[in-house]
């Protein structure tokens, strides 16, 4: 069993490692989404290439709030107040509109700390696996359209003015969108204003919250401007870069320590609002610090310790008389060891009742041979003669002894360990009484 212990430890460690991997690798589905045609993995790479300071969210890393300038938050949920219904059929799973569930409080928490761009959803879940953009894979407008109202109580109206590819000029660049999803400029509420407008509608709107002290929120109506497949179309990438330069100028300075654009695809807000670095104090660990251990009043304690140790060592160093010899490997030791080993093997065999029977037989036979001599006292006749001899002295106790011996030697009905112990005690007591008196 002792040898198995390291293996058990290794097994536990391996299991713990696997559990850790399972636990930390829980976002595999999320990562697949981010790498899909409707994910925004490519945006960070592109913006970095354009010289903007960008940081992708990571479940194992908590960026400091002071180092972030702007948050990009793609939504893959169409109802912030309800959990998505469970998909019962593959068709339901294909047309699911929630790919990453997010609660309203969770989203609001992320919008308080810095200016943010929320990217509204457009494509159903099946797009991730099929990688096909078809009008049947569009999220119904009434579902995607409820999001501005849930985020900021804004009555922005989503429209899809045209089918198929639409290309429009934005400044020097051309924006290409498939089945464009835009805000209706006619229904623009007072809190909102257009940031990027197209001929058919508004692509990016800026909206203010009712509270005055909050950062403005930018809403991108069509994710195809920035997602993985959309970035490659026309000059969408250039427009995206231009947009971020405009919205987060601090990140576009090119400086090494510039605050970063935070592309947040995590289920939780990972931003760390407490700056530990400011709290950290550096100590100068010099020899003077070490010397404080030996300054009063600690000097006294060291002295006490030294005296105590010195006297203990003094006492230990002086022995009274010669060193005691170790128990040598004498033949009598080996004989006792052999008996102990044999006894251990008998115990391991697990035939306690059989052993007790042997002991009873041996003791009775020994007593019979001591009483009557080796020849006459040998065998069952000797034991019977012993009982006859004892019963003449004390019939009651002899009958009792005979009954106990019979019970102990009857191996067909094994006794329980407790009963065995009790009977053996009774046997020893009766034998002692009968041979040596009370």
């Amino acid at each position, binding site marked *: 069993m002792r040898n198995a212990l390291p293996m058990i430890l290794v097994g536990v460690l391996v299991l713990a490692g696997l559990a850790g991997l399972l636990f930390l690798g829980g976002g595999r589905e999320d990562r697949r989404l981010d790498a899909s045609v409707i994910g925004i993995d490519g945006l960070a790479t592109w913006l970095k290439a354009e010289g903007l300071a960008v940081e992708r969210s990571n479940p194992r890393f908590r960026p400091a709030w002071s180092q972030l300038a702007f948050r990009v938050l793609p939504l893959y949920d169409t109802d912030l107040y309800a959990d998505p219904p469970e998909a019962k059929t593959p068709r339901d799973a294909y047309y699911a509109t929630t790919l990453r569930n997010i609660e309203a409080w969770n989203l609001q928490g992320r919008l308080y700390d810095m200016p943010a761009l929320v990217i509204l959803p457009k494509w159903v879940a099946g797009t991730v696996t099929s990688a096909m953009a078809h009008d049947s894979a569009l999220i119904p407008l009434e579902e995607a359209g409820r999001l501005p109202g849930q985020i900021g109580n804004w009555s922005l109206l989503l429209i899809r003015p045209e089918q198929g590819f639409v290309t429009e000029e934005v400044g020097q660049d051309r924006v290409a969108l498939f089945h464009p999803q835009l805000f209706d400029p006619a229904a623009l509420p007072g809190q909102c204003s257009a940031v990027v407008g197209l001929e058919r509608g508004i692509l990016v709107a800026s909206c203010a919250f009712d509270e005055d002290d909050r950062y403005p929120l930018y809403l991108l109506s069509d994710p195809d401007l920035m997602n993985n497949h959309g970035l490659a179309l026309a000059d969408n990438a250039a427009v995206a870069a231009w947009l971020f330069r405009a919205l987060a100028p601090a990140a576009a300075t090119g400086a090494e320590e510039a605050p970063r654009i935070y592309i947040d695809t995590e289920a939780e807000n990972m931003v760390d609002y407490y700056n530990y670095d400011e709290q950290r104090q550096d100590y100068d660990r010099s020899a003077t610090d070490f010397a404080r251990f030996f300054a009063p009043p600690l000097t006294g304690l060291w002295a006490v310790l030294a005296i105590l140790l010195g006297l203990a060592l003094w006492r230990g160093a002086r022995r009274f008389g010669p060193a005691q010899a170790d128990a040598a490997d004498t033949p009598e030791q080996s004989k*006792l060891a052999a*008996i102990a080993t044999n006894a251990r093997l008998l115990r391991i065999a697990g035939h306690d009742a059989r052993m007790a029977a042997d002991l009873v037989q*041996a003791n009775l036979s*020994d007593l019979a041979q001591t009483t009557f001599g080796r020849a006459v006292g040998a065998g069952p006749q000797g034991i019977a003669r012993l009982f006859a001899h004892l019963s003449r002295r004390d019939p009651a106790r002899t009958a009792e002894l005979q009954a106990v011996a019979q019970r102990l030697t009857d191996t067909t009905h094994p006794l329980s360990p407790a009963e065995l112990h009790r009977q053996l005690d009774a046997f020893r007591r009766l034998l002692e009484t009968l041979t040596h008196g009370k």
Partner: protein
Amino acid sequence: MRPSRLMLAALGALAALSVALVVWRPEDPGLLAWPWAALLLAAVVDLALTVPARGIAPEADLPPRGFAGHRAMLDLTLRGRRLPPKLWVRLTHDPGLEPAETAATELPKGATEAALRLPLALRDRGMQAVTRLRLMYPSRLGLFDILPGWPLDLKIQVLPDISPVLSGAIQAQMLPLLEGARVMNLKGEGSEFHQLRDFAPGMDPRSIDWKRSARVNDLVARETRVERNHQIILCLDTGHLMAERLAGLTRLDHAIHAALALCWASGLAGDNVGFYSFGARPRPLIPPRPGRAAFGPIQSACAELMPDEAETNHTLGLSVLNGKLKRRSLVVVFSDFVDSTSAELLVENLAVMQRQHVVLYVALRDPDLQGLIRPATSGMDDVAQAIAAARILQERQAVLDRLARLGILCLDAAPGQLTAALISRYIEIKAKEMI
């Protein structure tokens, strides 16, 4: 000298007090020094009041000779201007000596001389030495243990035990045989003519020598005695099994003591005694001589015998002896075995020897094993141990039974009873005229 337990306890208490003072009164480090100064003062006063070790002069004396298995008394006299009221004594000695555990010795107050007797058990034969004496006594206040030591050069020669011979115990045991009382009571009587004596009523009429009665005209009876001038060979196994200690002495020592007693008894009975020993290799045979003349050489041979490290070669040892014996003899073999398998060769060779000689096999019973087969508790571990011990004893008994069936005489005795039992068996063999 070393600090006593009391001193260490006081130090521990002071250390705890010091920590408490540092914690509660850190602004006053001088406070810490007071209790320590008090302890230092107590230690100095204690040492000043204590009996100095250099003022004690010990004298030790040990008898020059002793018998193995007995005790020798070491006489120790301590002299000084004053002696401590309580002291312990320990000796540095050879492993063949074992001092008895002695408690502290109390001395009267103001004593200037004290005589102590320290018993030393003599475990091994040969020259044994006591090389150092150490005393321990507490200082006046008990803060120190004073440990003075003096070198000693005391030697004792430990000899095989012949105290039964010297005390006359053997002679007393042999009296029935020597005076014929035992023989007269036995059927068959002695076969050797001793003397004629007047017939008295009560004597066996068959003992009347009719021819001589007619010649002297009075009833004369023949008095016979047991045969004399028999040859007795004492044969000792010195293999590694004989190194096992029983009751403080090795099996070999017990065997030597019994053999020497038998040698003396045989001398008294008028027999010739020879001596032979074998371990892995046989040793030279001391040829049979009249018992008393043989005792000296046999005693010196025994003094040099030590148990071998190697296994006994029974075949070689016993066949060499068998080849050297020309006359029917009583061969007394002192040997031992572990189990029936290892005893096979012993049994075979004894059986061969038994064809020409009377063989008496002497084994020693282990009292510890006898104690094991009656466990003190009913715990199953003790029961298992009892079974294991009982099996060893059964196997041993089976070998002895087998020897007995082959006509070999066996003697299985406890260490303390071996000599008496052997002499008794010898008398019995003589009386039955088995040789």
